[in-house]
């Protein structure tokens, strides 16, 4: 479990470097990515399946990104883009084309559908996360900057 946390953090920070995130935010990006991945793994272990797990993880990621953005006075994109990479269905793309080439069309269709469903799930998760009014987060940011 610890290895999953540390590695998802390292991988997210690697993407933070690739997207030129300001250095002071590397660690927070990493934590956001790790939390998202933990939520994903937790949901999977409860038997929700990949789609529902992606929705929950994307939702939590978006909320944390918005909280961090209010507290750190950074655009929320900084935390969202880097964090979301742990959820993007890279393996789905691979298996879809693999089964297509192997002419196992049934498997290919199933994997292709799953890839689209996961992408859709991420969309839904982010949208649910964006629905909360910005003023709540602003208030949180003001409380934190007073301290």
């Amino acid at each position, binding site marked *: 479990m610890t290895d999953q946390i540390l*590695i998802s953090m390292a991988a997210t920070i690697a993407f933070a470097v*690739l997207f030129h995130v*300001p250095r002071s935010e590397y660690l927070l990006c990493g934590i956001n990515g790790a939390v998202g991945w933990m939520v994903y793994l937790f949901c999977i272990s409860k038997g929700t399946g990949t789609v529902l797990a992606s929705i929950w993880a994307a939702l939590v990621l978006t909320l944390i990104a918005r909280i961090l953005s209010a507290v750190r006075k950074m655009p929320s994109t900084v935390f969202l883009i880097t964090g979301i990479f742990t959820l993007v269905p890279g*393996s789905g793309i*691979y298996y879809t084309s693999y089964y297509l080439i192997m002419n196992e069309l049934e498997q290919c269709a199933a994997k292709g559908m799953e890839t689209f469903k996961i992408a859709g799930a991420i*969309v839904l998760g*982010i949208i649910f996360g964006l629905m909360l009014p910005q003023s709540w987060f602003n208030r949180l940011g003001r409380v934190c900057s007073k301290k």
Partner: protein
Amino acid sequence: MPESKVTLNLAISVGEVLLKSGGEIYRVQETVSRILEAYGIEDYHVFVITNGIFATVYEQREDAGSMVRYVPIGEVNLQRVAEINQLSREICEKKCSISEAFERLEQCRNSYSEGKLAMIFACGVGSAGFCYLLGGRPYDSMVSFFLGVFLEIFLILAANYHASRFLMNILGSALVTAGSLLLFAAGAGILSDKVVIGGIIPLVPGVALTTAIRDLFNGDYLSGSIRMIDALLTGMCIAIGVGGVIKIFQLMGGGAFLL
């Protein structure tokens, strides 16, 4: 030049950097409008799409100004987005004169970003990490690390030749797949599927997907659709690169390379 035009030039230049570095449409629109307001321009119109900004000020007056900027989709640079955010906040608090703002913008354009070596290393770490997270063994993620490193080197070289993004995605994923299958065929004992998945992660359109959603959510349907199509096509390009190489290996090996 009348002052309205100088202000418009500043606002739209700030917007250009922001849009190019990966800011969302509504953020760009908001930033440009706020800067214009902060410098006392009341009558203005700003229209932003994924690859262009259009703005006019004081259409009915003598000192009317209008500007159009074409902004091709560029490399994501979140540091610039953050800096511009800070700059526009200061402008709105009237802490920054126009000439100062131009200077800050110029600094921001040339701001330090991580060097190529750091990028190459980061790409390797990202690939290795995802290979492990998605079920690879430490040994597989080590292989994935090197494929990630090669991929980033390839992408940097290809960018020098202004290769099209389609070609870069197809060739990039093909490179990763070929590397993994060659090692597998040489008897390296890797889980080649996990290695490939880790290796192609840097190409996967996570940014395009996220930005598309945010644009659509804010009601910028045109820009959101452009990004969404971008994400879809990138995904397809990766699939073509991976699939093509597997097919070639399959034909060459007569099935001996079945994974």
